[in-house]
């Protein structure tokens, strides 16, 4: 049981790095993709957070991004291996367009995550570890402290610039 | 479904229902409806009604968007 918990924590760290990197690469903290994301960013800033981090968190709420892509890819790999993961990537792509998001952060995250999760299953992880791990990762960004998370994301965004 | 999971999602559904009734703010009510639907969906899936789950998860957000439009008209 302890082994599985350690696997889940490791999967959480891997998923966190994966989705934050892809989202920052696709410039999610730069501007609100839709007006709703800017509204969320404003409220997070009013609560003491950083605007760039808040913008990224707002974008995560308003459209499937790399975090959603990673979660659904892990679900896809669990259900049907690599074809399942790629099918999940296709579903994320459709979801992006339904939400009026012209970007590719979600699809890219899903495709990358498919291969990362599958490779991990070859070295002792199971896809369910990544499902739980991704949920923990998104909890740390959106569910614990908005002020601290947005400041951390803003600092990472400054590194990219 | 194991008991712990039934309790957990039953709690989520109950919290969603209670807060929809008790919260005064309109946006809060709409978001609480989302919490309610989130709580009941695992029960639907667990029984094997996956097609019902897909239908509910497509229709419920559309329904809440209609409620949202009514909220906006009431505010204006």
């Amino acid at each position, binding site marked *: 049981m302890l082994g599985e918990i350690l696997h889940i924590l490791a999967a959480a760290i891997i998923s966190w790095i994966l989705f934050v990197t892809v989202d920052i690469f696709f410039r999610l903290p730069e501007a609100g993709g*839709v007006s709703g994301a800017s509204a969320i960013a404003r*409220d997070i800033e009013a609560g003491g957070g950083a605007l760039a981090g808040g913008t990224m968190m707002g974008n995560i709420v308003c459209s499937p991004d790399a975090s959603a892509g990673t979660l659904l890819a892990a679900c896809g790999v669990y259900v049907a291996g690599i074809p399942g993961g790629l099918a999940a990537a296709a579903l994320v792509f459709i979801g992006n367009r339904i939400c009026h998001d012209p970007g590719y952060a979600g699809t890219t995250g899903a495709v990358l995550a498919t291969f990362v999760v599958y490779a991990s299953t070859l070295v002792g992880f199971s896809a369910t570890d990544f499902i739980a791990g991704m949920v923990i990762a998104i909890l740390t960004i959106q569910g614990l402290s908005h002020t601290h998370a947005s400041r951390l994301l803003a600092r990472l965004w400054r590194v990219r610039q | 479904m194991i008991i712990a999971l039934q309790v957990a999602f039953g709690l989520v559904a109950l919290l969603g229902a209670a807060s929809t009734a008790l919260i005064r703010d309109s946006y809060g009510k709409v978001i609480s409806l*989302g919490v309610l639907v989130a709580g009941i969906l695992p029960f639907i899936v667990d029984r094997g009604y*996956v097609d019902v*789950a897909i239908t509910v*998860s497509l229709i419920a957000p559309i329904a809440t968007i209609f409620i949202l439009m009514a909220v906006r008209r009431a505010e204006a």
Partner: protein
Amino acid sequence: MIALYIVAGVAVFAAIRVIVERNTGRKLPYANVLNFAVAGTIVLLLNHPLALVAAAAYFVGSTLEANAVASTYAGGMKR
């Protein structure tokens, strides 16, 4: 399995935080966590390709709903 317990725990935690938070703009990220957790639960409960479709449909639907709430809260869709 442990993953199911963890995801259910996160769901309850996120649901409580959604309700307790007063500001709408800050409620939405907590609701987003809840949506992630429920999407994960759907697939963990039923290991079948249709469950993947259900999880994706639920996630896209809940994201669309959160998007609509955020846009209306912001004062209307910017064209």
